[in-house]
């Protein structure tokens, strides 16, 4: 933003540039609505297919079913080995554990990076940023052998414990940026009053960084919930399966069996993310923009 913006008059070239004429405006809206329909159509198709009888899914391409078949949901719910309620419970355990882990461990690390000077800080900080770029696939095999030796395979521990060790550097980075925007005077005032760093973290920084913690919570929730690869690797028996793994069970059966049920469960599987999106839409979009920008 430039500091001085001259008042806009309707004749200024900038005005013409910014607020387009009526027809141009309509043109832009038309293009954007067109793009929006293409973007959302597959999702609407999934929703409508989830309510259609199998025979209609591929023969009646329209979005409005001629016959409703809500039984797809009840059949899908109980139809893939275990009941879907088990998969949802398992997913909840994993995601809630991951959220708690990330919020605690990442905020601790971020506070240290944002507020202290210590030996090698630049190097440690650089390493932290480096792990941001490291693809998880590069450490997947040795991490698996570690958890194998700990006999943690087919438990939720490999999916939760690492989050308590601040492995998601993205959130540390996000929180460091946020803490830097909190005035240091607040810490110093508390320090003069005799508060130790732990109290400053707990009583001042943590309450003030609520927006960053909420962003972390939402993204950790969604990304962990959708993290198919790690769940596929670590969870081996049906009764430990999470929602994404439960969904893949439909894939093996589909030839012949119910497509409607598969779409019904796919719709349900997306529901938590969709609800998060609808509630926190603005924060999600802006969180993505600012965390990307501050780099």
């Amino acid at each position: 933003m430039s500091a001085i913006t001259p008042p806009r008059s309707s004749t200024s070239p900038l005005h013409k540039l910014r607020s387009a004429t009526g027809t141009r405006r309509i043109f832009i809206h038309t293009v954007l609505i067109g793009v929006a329909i293409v973007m959302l159509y597959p999702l609407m198709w999934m929703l409508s297919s989830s309510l259609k009888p199998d025979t209609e899914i591929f023969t009646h391409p329209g979005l409005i079913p001629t016959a409703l078949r809500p039984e797809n949901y009840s059949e899908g719910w109980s139809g893939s080995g275990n009941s879907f309620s088990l998969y949802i419970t398992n997913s909840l355990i994993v995601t809630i554990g991951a959220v708690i882990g990330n919020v605690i461990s990442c905020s601790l690390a971020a506070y240290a990076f944002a507020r202290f000077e210590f030996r090698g800080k630049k190097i440690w900080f650089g390493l932290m940023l480096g792990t941001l770029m490291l693809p998880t696939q590069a450490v997947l095999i040795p991490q698996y052998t570690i958890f194998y030796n700990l006999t943690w395979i087919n438990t939720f521990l490999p999916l939760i414990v690492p989050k308590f060790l601040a492995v998601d550097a993205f959130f540390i980075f996000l929180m460091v940026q946020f803490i830097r925007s909190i005035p240091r005077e607040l810490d110093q005032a508390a320090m003069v009053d005799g508060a130790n760093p732990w109290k400053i973290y707990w009583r001042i920084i943590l309450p003030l960084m609520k927006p960053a913690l909420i962003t972390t919570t939402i993204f950790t929730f969604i990304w962990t919930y959708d993290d198919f690869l790690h769940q596929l690797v670590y969870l081996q028996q049906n009764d430990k399966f999470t929602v994404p793994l439960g969904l893949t069970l439909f894939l093996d059966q589909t030839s012949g069996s119910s497509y409607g049920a598969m779409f019904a469960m796919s719709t349900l599987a997306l529901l938590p993310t969709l609800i998060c999106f609808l509630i926190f839409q603005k924060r999600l979009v802006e969180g993505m923009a600012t965390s990307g920008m501050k780099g």
Partner: protein
Amino acid sequence: MTTAQTGEVVKEPSAPATPSDQRERDRMRRRLARRRGGGWWPYLFLAPWFVGLFGLTIYPMLDSLYLSFTNFDLLTPAQWVGMDNYDRMFTDDPVFWDSVHATLVYVVVSVPLKLALALAVAMLLNRDLRGIGLYRAAFYLPSLLGGAVAIAIVWRQVFGGEGLFNDFLGWFGLNTGQDWISSPDTALYTLVLLAVWQFGTPMVIFLAGLKQLPKDVFEAAAIDGAGAVTRFFKITLPLLTPIVFFNVVLQIIDAFKTFTPAFVISNGSGGPLNSTMLYSLYLYKKGFTDLQMGYASALAWVLFLVIALFTAVNFIASRYWVHYDD
């Protein structure tokens, strides 16, 4: 005078500090400085991260380097085989080359398309429009859902022989009834389309960048008679290069890691004819289906080096095309 007679010291705000005050203040300042350095406090706060860094990143990286020179099936001790895994990869494993091919095509086609679309839509959204929030949300949603198995399942059906995509082609009389998923020529491109569909994240970042551009430059150019196209190529794009760069680096790394849609769409096989065998999927299959952990470790190290190489080349090349203001 009376106070002096009774021997009391009156402290006025402006009075010069007594030596003891001075000492007290120095002590406080030293204490603040020490607190800032923090002694062992920062290490305490960083303790979980240190454990994670060494236990789950640095040690595994080294362990994986060691394993990559061994045969290891997880159940029996690893056997040292020297360069065998790497030899086999480059000279004796056609599937490896299939996966390299699929991955490179995927990265090279999807990343530019995705970024171009993201920038184009961001340009359209960068004005005072009614309902701009709704548009942003609608375009961002697919990116947020992107990694979900459910989306990959939907995609598989959309591009199947009787799916939505063929219906769409039918409107233009182009429906040949082809099954895009089971044809080796097109299966990979359904994955590319899925990636392009998820242009929301870079779009949001572009949009934030566009909002930061100085308006007066555009105004001056418009007064000088520069048209929209000239303004875009001479002003917008050069000023935006740091953000373009940021998005390029991020999206390339992301594309290399793609796993879920390739797994779901091919039912875990990478088929037809290895056309959707993205590198991550091949690594998974070698490690966890075939239990060739040593070979998979070698694959992982090659992936790590290739991504590091791409990123390094990106950073070096950026000197020639990224313009920083300050």
